């Protein structure tokens, strides 16, 4: 018990130190590194939003970039000359639009299990990307520009605030509340969760909408930050792919896993780009990371630090088992 309390205080102290360092980062590093840190915070937040449904509820969403894209396009369109809405006001509007899309898409697709749900969500993102390429109000394949605002510190703190809020929301909702118990229960055994009085359809939809809305916020900030978006840059399947690998590497279904995986892989991405001027090699690293996790790290990097009472099973086993249609999981 004393050891547990000691570890808890040590963890809290580490968190405070990290937050203080992150808050002071703009005065510690130049704009180049600040830009990289901004990107790392965005990916940590996006990975966390994917983990809400994929890790806590066990539903693998291969179309999560759709919600990132909706947020990005909402901000880009609303900040354009036709509407001239202030940036901060575009974020809640993007969240509402995203939530509506999530309800319309989630209600039917969350009835599907395993690979069927994954395929349906992937198709949804593809459809949205194609739609964005053929309609005028998105700028089509040519994309859409936003009013430039060249203030790296502003975007750093915007991503920082969004990431902190995302992790606080995840901690309070999924780790410390009744809602989190319901979500994890349906992940582990949906019929048993129903038998405990849990309306699993509703809880899944709530989680789906929440994860979508969070991704939309990062999409809004991203669009304003980069000042130009096109369908591929915000709806592309590689965005979801990266979130998935970041979560798997960091630790599926854990609070800090997405942060660890997101920051680690984004820095690898930037380092490769710095030294080789191209990120093709990064794709190979993503593949290697998946193999590494499946074979040796089912609980991800975060699992190396977790106090585990035994060795049997992991969230990855449960989720892969569902994805592949077997109760026993993907590893033997």
């Amino acid at each position: 018990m004393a050891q547990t309390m000691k570890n808890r205080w040590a963890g809290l102290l580490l968190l405070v130190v990290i937050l203080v360092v992150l808050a002071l980062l703009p005065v510690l590093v130049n704009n180049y590194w600040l830009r990289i840190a901004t990107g790392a915070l965005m990916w940590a937040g996006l990975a966390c939003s994917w983990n809400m449904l994929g890790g806590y509820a066990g539903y693998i969403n291969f179309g999560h970039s759709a919600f990132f894209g909706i947020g990005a396009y909402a901000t880009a369109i609303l900040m354009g000359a036709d509407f001239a809405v202030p940036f901060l006001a575009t974020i809640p509007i993007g969240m509402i639009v995203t939530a509506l899309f999530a309800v319309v898409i989630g209600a039917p697709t969350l009835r599907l299990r395993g690979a069927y749900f994954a395929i349906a969500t992937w198709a949804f993102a593809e459809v949205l990307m194609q739609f964005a390429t053929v309609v005028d109000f998105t700028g089509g394949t040519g994309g859409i520009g936003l009013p430039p605002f060249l203030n790296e510190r502003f975007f750093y703190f915007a991503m920082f605030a969004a990431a902190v809020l995302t992790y606080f929301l995840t901690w309070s909702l999924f780790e410390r509340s009744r809602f989190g118990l319901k979500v994890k229960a349906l992940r582990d055994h949906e019929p048993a969760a129903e038998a405990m009085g849990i309306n699993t359809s509703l809880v899944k939809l709530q989680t789906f909408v929440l994860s979508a809305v969070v991704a939309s916020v990062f999409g809004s900030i991203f669009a304003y930050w980069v000042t130009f978006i096109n369908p591929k840059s915000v709806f592309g399947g590689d965005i979801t792919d990266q979130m998935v690998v970041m979560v798997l590497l960091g630790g599926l279904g854990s609070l800090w896993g997405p942060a660890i995986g997101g920051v680690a892989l984004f820095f690898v991405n930037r380092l490769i780009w710095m030294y080789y001027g191209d990120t093709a090699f990064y794709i190979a690293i993503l593949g290697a990371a998946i193999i590494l996790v499946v074979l040796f790290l089912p609980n991800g990097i975060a699992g190396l630090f977790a106090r585990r009472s035994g060795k049997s099973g992991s969230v990855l086993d449960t989720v892969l088992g569902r994805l592949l249609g077997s109760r026993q999981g993907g590893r033997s």
Partner: protein
Amino acid sequence: MTAQAPAPGDQPILFVRDVHKHFGGIQAAAGVDLEVGRGEIAGLIGPNGSGKSTLFNLVAGMETPDRGQILFDGHEIGGKKAYKIARLGLARTFQIPALFENMTVSENLLAAAAEGHWHGAQQRSDETLALLHLEPVANNRASDLSGGQQKLLEFGRVIMRQASLILLDEVTAGVHPNIRKIILEAIARLREQGTSFFVIEHDMEMVRNVCDRIIVMDSGRVVTSGAFEDIVQNSEVMQTYLGRPQ
């Protein structure tokens, strides 16, 4: 069947009439009629494939009956969703323990109370851990438990539901005698508090010691019901159930 639904005030906790269910060409329930009284522990026996688990699934809302009537505490529940039936006060265990495997033992218990029974859940969870002798493994993952402990934990979850009717599907099958004793003591304690039980069991010793009445199923129908002593005197039933030569 000519039996009518019982009048209010004299209602059994569970009332099943002429319930049918087929899967493809297999008739799993072929006009099931039975009742479970309030405060009663009713045992359900029958050979494998006789329709016992299908009946549990129909009552608990895991399957929808093709036709027939199922009343729980006066509410028509045939075809209702499982979570709605659970919220009315019916809880169940599964033949193979259906645990929340990545959650701890304590979290499993709390999850069972997360919908509708949250007030005082932490205290009841502690009491349930003590009652079932699960305190030493309270912070272990459910998947790390032994088979017997998993049965205990699943039973603990139905305790947390504070249900008026509990369906137990072979809850003592294959467990150590000590764990069996813990479960039987907990059943007796809940029964004193007014909980009714409907129990699928192959262990005739347990059936004799625990159940007030035995219901025998075969080929999707109720063959007979009565006190244990009457049932074992029925050579036709024993032939069907145990394959004993006459």
